[in-house]
């Protein structure tokens, strides 16, 4: 097996063009599990760690551009106020050791329906900046997930960064697992209020073949909320929101949980996270 060690982004793209079968490796927390389990041997590893520019993030207008090499630990420490939903989700990933290596780009590369970065990326309306020697593609997050552990990247493409609108309102992430740490989500949910546009963003994790939004729930609740008067959340509307979120999911029974449990817990998480977010928005403090 070859080990490719580019030090510039241009070199990385050239390697990927020449060896499309090479597996990119960032933190390795997914790639190495596969190797240690002997689940197929990559023809080559393309190590993106030496590419220094990938470890940076920057503000571009109202967008935060997070380089593919920014670890969860740094995202939590440095981007909490700008990207609260993604930072909350990052805090639940694995353990401190995993978060010191793992990245959002790796989560996107793996495209597991249970990946914790996906729901907040969907709720915020992120864009994946994919690049190859042929050029750059800005892939809207809703078009990025194409199937179980499959994504829209072409064989010669690499993720350079993820572009995420800075939070314009409260955001929350919630996750069900068997322990308070180090768990793959049984299911998860993220909500983001976009008060300027009177819009609510959602993201569902681990309850369908791909992470997905709940468009009907978003439309219903955006119309039901009293954006102007900021009156308290109507419990009936919150419940309906929960039902519509569950209705958007298509879970299966598996080792981590049953489909009906997932539907139930999604409805509960949706209702609660909306309540927390709305209370923040109306200045009423924690629910």
């Amino acid at each position, binding site marked *: *097996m*070859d*080990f490719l*060690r580019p030090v510039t982004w241009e070199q990385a793209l050239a390697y990927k063009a020449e060896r499309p079968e090479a597996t990119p*490796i960032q933190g*390795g*927390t997914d790639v*190495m*599990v596969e*190797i*240690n*389990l*002997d689940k197929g*041997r990559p023809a080559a*590893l393309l*190590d993106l*760690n*030496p590419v220094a520019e990938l470890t940076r993030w920057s503000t571009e207008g109202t967008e935060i551009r997070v380089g593919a090499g920014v670890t969860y*630990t740094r995202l939590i420490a440095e981007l909490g106020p700008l990207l609260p939903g993604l930072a909350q989700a990052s805090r639940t990933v*694995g*353990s*401190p*050791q*995993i978060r*010191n*290596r793992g990245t959002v780009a790796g989560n996107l590369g793996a495209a597991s329906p249970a990946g914790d970065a996906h729901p907040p990326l969907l709720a915020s309306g992120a864009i994946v900046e994919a690049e190859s020697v042929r050029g750059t593609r800005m892939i809207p997050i809703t078009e990025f997930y194409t199937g179980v552990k499959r994504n829209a990247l072409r064989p010669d493409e690499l993720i350079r960064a993820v572009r995420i609108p800075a939070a314009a309102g409260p955001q929350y992430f919630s996750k069900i697992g068997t*322990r*308070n*740490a*180090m768990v793959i989500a049984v299911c998860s949910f993220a909500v983001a209020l976009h008060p300027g546009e009177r819009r609510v963003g959602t993201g569902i994790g681990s309850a369908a073949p791909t992470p997905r939004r709940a468009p009907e729930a978003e439309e219903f609740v955006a119309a039901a909320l009293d954006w102007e008067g900021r009156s308290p959340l109507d419990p009936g509307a919150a419940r309906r929101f929960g039902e519509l979120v569950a209705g958007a999911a298509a879970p299966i029974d598996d080792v981590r949980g049953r489909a009906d449990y997932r539907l139930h817990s999604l409805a509960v998480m949706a209702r609660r996270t909306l309540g927390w977010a709305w209370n923040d928005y109306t200045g009423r403090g924690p629910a």
Partner: protein
Amino acid sequence: MTAIVRRSGGNPTNAPDGGLCLALSDMGSSEATLSSAIRTETTFTVNGRRVQMELDPRESLLDVLRERLGLTGTKKGCDHGQCGACTVHLDGRRIVSCLTPAVQVNGQAVTTIEGVAAPDGTLHPLQEAFIDNDALQCGYCTPGQVMSGLACIAEGHAGDDDEIREYLSGNLCRCGAYAGILAAVRETARRTDSRVGEG
């Protein structure tokens, strides 16, 4: 978990420059496939000593430490990143060495449990605190717990018991010595704090 050892290596010998170098000629017969594989030159430091070797890209840092460098203090519990027994510091940050390809640490500094005590053998205060608080039974998880505990304190994540528990959540102990481990980290963090206060 598979017990098949697909890697073996030469014994480390002391190189003239004080670093470690490896004899790669004494490959076992199980290495037939690997010896034909492409190897990657990798240079890094382990506990301050320079190491240079040619590695198969699949070799984890954990296997290189244990099987090539003879540093068996770092333990293999799961090989999946879930137990923390293999925790080491890479450029000062804790990582699981089982999920880190050794070729990836090129140019970086690795600290293992063998690098924690003073050169004369004096234990680190956290190691002393593990003994004082009965923070181990079989001891298999202990090197990982100590490396994680050191990082937890250094990161400033040892403020109260809940925080310590959360930030040690990547280290499992099958013997259930958690109460002692928590006490040892808490005690050491307080001492470190008061020393900072005095300074």
